[in-house]
C-alpha cells in the first residue's frame, strides 16, 4: 500500500516539476474592437458592397510578431461598406482593404512598391478608422421600381466614380496595362427574399443581368438603364432588389476576381 502511495507521490512530483505551478499560463482574451468604413474620397459616401469573398476584403496583419508574419484570416465588409471586428488581440497592425476601387497597395511588375495607402496603427483600445478610396463606378437607382406580371422593372444609372485619366495614372505603372480594364462589362440585377440581397444571396430564378462587350457601354455612362427581372415572382411577396456593375479589372491584381460596385437594396412588394 505504502509503495503505491509513495510511487504515486513520486509520479506526482515528476509531473508537476516541469511547469511553473503558480503562474497562470494564459493570454488575455482578444478584446480590442476595430470599426471601419470604406468611403468614396470625392463624395464621402460609403462604398457599397456584398458580404462575401467577392465584396470588400479586410486584411489585418499583426506586425508585432516580427518580419515574417502571415495575415490574420481575412474578413469582409458588410453590404453598407463598413466592417467591425470586436475580437482582436492588442498589437500593431497593418490594415488594408481590397475591393472595387483603385488598389491601396500598388506594386510594379518587379514587385517594387509604388504606393501603400494601407493603415498601420497600434491597436491597444477600440478604434474607428476610415478608408478613403476611389471606387470604379457609382450605381444609383432612378425612380422607383415597378412590378408588372410578376416582373420587376427598375431603372439605374451607372457612372464612373474615377476618371479614366486617374485610373490610368494609378494603374498603368503596375504593369500589363490594357485599355480594356476600363470597360464596363456587366450590370447585375439581383432579386431575393433576403434583405441582404446580392451576389451570394440572389435568387437564381429571378435575378438577371445585362452583359456589355468591349467598350460598348461607354456612351451609356450616366444614362438611365432599364433592368427587368427573370421569370415570374409569385404575387403577394416582398422581395429585395439590388443592382451592381463592374469594370474589366480584377482586384487585387492577379486574383481574377472582378468586384462589383453596388446600389442600395430596395424593398419591392410584388402584387
Amino acid at each position: 500500500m505504502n509503495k503505491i502511495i509513495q510511487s504515486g507521490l513520486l509520479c506526482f512530483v515528476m509531473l508537476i516539476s516541469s511547469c511553473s505551478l503558480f503562474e497562470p499560463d494564459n493570454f488575455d482574451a482578444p478584446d480590442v474592437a476595430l470599426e471601419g468604413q470604406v468611403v468614396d474620397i470625392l463624395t464621402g459616401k460609403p462604398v457599397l458592397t456584398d458580404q462575401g469573398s467577392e465584396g470588400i476584403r479586410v486584411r489585418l496583419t499583426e506586425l508585432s510578431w516580427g518580419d515574417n508574419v502571415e495575415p490574420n484570416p481575412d474578413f469582409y465588409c458588410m453590404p453598407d461598406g463598413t466592417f467591425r471586428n470586436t475580437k482582436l488581440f492588442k498589437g500593431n497592425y497593418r490594415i488594408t482593404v481590397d475591393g472595387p476601387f483603385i488598389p491601396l497597395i500598388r506594386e510594379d511588375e518587379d514587385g517594387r512598391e509604388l504606393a501603400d495607402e494601407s493603415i498601420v496603427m497600434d491597436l491597444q483600445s477600440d478604434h474607428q478608422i476610415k478608408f478613403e478610396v476611389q471606387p470604379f463606378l457609382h450605381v444609383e437607382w432612378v425612380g422607383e421600381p415597378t412590378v408588372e406580371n410578376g416582373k420587376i422593372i427598375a431603372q439605374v444609372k451607372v457612372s464612373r466614380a474615377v476618371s479614366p485619366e486617374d485610373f490610368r495614372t494609378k494603374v498603368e505603372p503596375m504593369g500589363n496595362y490594357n485599355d480594356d480594364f476600363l470597360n464596363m462589362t456587366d450590370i447585375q440585377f439581383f432579386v431575393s427574399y433576403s434583405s441582404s440581397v446580392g451576389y451570394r444571396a440572389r435568387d437564381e430564378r429571378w435575378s438577371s443581368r445585362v452583359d456589355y462587350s468591349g467598350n460598348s457601354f461607354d456612351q451609356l455612362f450616366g444614362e438611365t438603364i432599364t433592368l427587368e427581372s427573370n421569370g415570374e415572382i409569385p404575387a403577394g411577396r416582398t422581395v429585395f432588389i439590388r443592382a451592381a456593375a463592374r469594370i474589366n479589372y480584377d482586384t487585387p491584381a492577379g486574383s481574377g476576381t472582378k468586384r462589383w460596385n453596388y446600389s442600395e437594396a430596395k424593398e419591392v412588394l410584388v402584387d
Partner: protein
Amino acid sequence: MNRKRFLSIWTIIAGAACMCLNACVDLDITPKNVVADDDVLSTDAGVNIYMARMYSLMPFEDFKYTAQWGFENNGWLNSAGIEGTGEAVNREGLSAAFTSERTPYWNKGFELILEANYLLENLPNFKENFSEELYNHYLGEAYYARATAFYTMAKRFGGIPLVTKVIPYPASSEEMEVPRATEEETWDQILEDFDQAVELMMEESPIEGYSNKYVALAFKSEAMLYAGSVAKYNQDVSGRLTGLGRKTGVRVIGFDATTWQTASIRYFTEAYKAAREVMQDGGYSLYKKRWTADDPEAQYQNMVDMFSDLSSPENIYVKQYIFPTTTHAFDAYNLPFTFRAPLASGTCPTLDFIELFDGFDRYPDGSIRVTNGDQNASGNYLMFDSPLDFFKDAEPRLRAYVIFPSDEFRNKQIDVRAGVYIGDTPIKPFFSNYAYNTADTRYQNLSIYNGSSKSLYLSPREGGSQEIVDYNGKQMTAAGQEGPFYDNGEATVTGLYLRKWLNTDPNAEGGEGKSAQPFILMRYAEVLLNAAEAAIELRLADATSPDGSDFLQVATDAVNEIRERAGANLLQGTLTADIDGRNTVRKERRKELAFEHKSKWDIRRWRVAHYEGRDGFWGETRDKNKFSNNENYRFRGLYPFFSTKTGKYFFDARFQWVASKTYGYTPLNYYFEIPGGEVAKSAVIDQQPNR
C-alpha cells in the same frame, strides 16, 4: 528497516538514477538494429528494398487517391471524376470542384525528394558492386522519382523549392531553407530530371513495378504538356495569372511577359518529342485483343477488358493490387445500388459527359435530343420501347465506360427508372424551362406529381417507400430497383452508372478491401493524345517540327487510331491548325481518359474552369451560360420515365435531380494555396502572391 521501505527507497534511487544518468558517454558504435548504407546500397537486393520504400512514397493518383482529400493513401470513398470535371457527380460533399486538397502535397513530396537525392548522392560509393546497366538504371529511378515529386507539386503550386541535394540536418537556416523557385525554373528542373531518367534507365523495367525509359518518356510528355499549356493559357486569364513572392520577389507563379512564349514552345516541343519516341520505339500499341472492325459489341467488350488485362500492350505503367494483402475498395463504393457493400453509386456519369460521344440524335445546339422539338422544353418526348433503344447507336467506348439504363452488368439488368407517367400521350416536356436558373425546381415539385390530378409517380426511397402503379394488372414500382430515388442519394443521382474499372465478375465478393483491379496510371492512348495536342499547339505557334514530321498528320493519325478502337466516327480529312482542330484533340482526350484522374488536370491547364474561360470546359466549345452562372456550374442527368399509356420509355434531360451539386472555381484556384504553416514558419517560403 523493513523490506517494504527498503524496496521503495530503492525505487526512488533507481528513478533518480534514471533521470540523472541519461547523458553520459557517446556510444559511437553502429547499432546492430539500424540498417546502414553498407547494407542497403551495396547489393541489388538491398537497392530493391530501397526502391520499394521510394515507390511507396510515389504520389500515384489511383484507387487510393481522392481529389478533395489529397494523398491520404486510404481510398475511403474513392471514386472517379467527381471533382467538378463534369464526368460524374455523387451525393457526397467530396463531389466538389478541385480547388484544394485537405492534405496538401508538400511534406510527403519532400520525403520522396530526400529519398531520391540520398540515392543519387550515396549510390556512387558502391558503383563497383553493380553492373553498369543496373547502376545507371538505379540512378535513373532516383531522377524519375524526383521528377515525379517536383511535377506533382508544380502542377498544384507553381514554383516550388527545388531541393536537388540532401540537406544536412542540423544546420544553419541558410543551409536548410530553400525558397520557392520561379515557375519556369521549376518546369525546367522537371524537364532536366526526366531527361536524366530517360538517358539512364533501361528500356525494359528490370523488375516488375520499376520504371523504365519509356515510362519516364510518357510521363515527361504529360508533364511538359502541362507546362506548355500553363505558360500559354495563363495569358488568357485576367491579370495574366502571374505574380512575385512577397518575401523573395521571385516569380513564384506564372511566367515573365518576355519569356512565356518561348517557354511554352519549348515545353510543347519536349512533350511532342517524348511522346513521339514512345510511339516510334516503345513497342506499345492500343489494346485490341477482342476488337473487330464494324462490330460494336466486340469493340465494347474490348474496352471493358482492357482495364483489367495486365498483359495489355497498351499499359505503360500500372499500379497493381493483390488480394488479400494489398487491395482497394473501388467496387464497394461504386457498384450500382443493389450491389451495395457497404455503399454504392459513388460515380454517377452525367448527361453532359455522354454528350461528348457519337451516336445520339441532337438538337441544333448540339445537346442530346429527348423531344421532337428544337430544344428540350419544346415538342413532345421521343418514345422508346426500351431505354436501351435510346443508346442503340452510342459509341462502344461510351458503353464500356458507362452503364446505360437497362443495360447488363454482372448478368443483371440494371433497372434504372426515374418515375412512371400515367397521363395521355403525346407527352409534353415536364418543365416549361430547363435553364440553369430553374435547376432547383425538381420533379417532385411538379403539380403533376404533388397536385390533385396526379399523373407522375416517383419514389422517395427504395423498398417499401416505393410508390406503386398498376400497369396491365401488375404492380409496378415508380422508380427502378437501381433508382433514382429523390430522397436517397445512395442510388444513381443522374440516371447513369459507371462501368469502367468495376469488377465485372458476377461471383465477385462485395465489400471494402475486396477489390484488386489494377489501376493504369499511364497508357499508350494518352501518349498518342499528348503527341496530338502538342502537335496542334506547336503548329498554332508556328514552331518547326523537331523531327521533321508533319504535325497535323501526326495529330490526325493519333486521334483516328483512338477513334477506330473506340468505335467512334473517324475524322473527315486532316485536323486543321486552329481552335477547332485543337478542340477536336481536347475533346478526344476528355472522352478517352475520363474517370482516370486526368481530366481535372486538363481542365486546369487549359484554364477553362473559371467563368470567363468556361466556354471551353468540355474541350469543345459549349455556351457556359447553359450550365453555369457567373459563379457556379452544375451538370445534368438523363432520367428515363415509363409511360403506362404506351408501354414505352421517354427521357428527360434535367440538371442533377437528387443531391443537387454546384461547383465553383475562380482563377485563384489554378494555383493551390501553399500550406499556411509552411509559409508562417519559414522566412523564405512565399504564399501565392494573388491570395
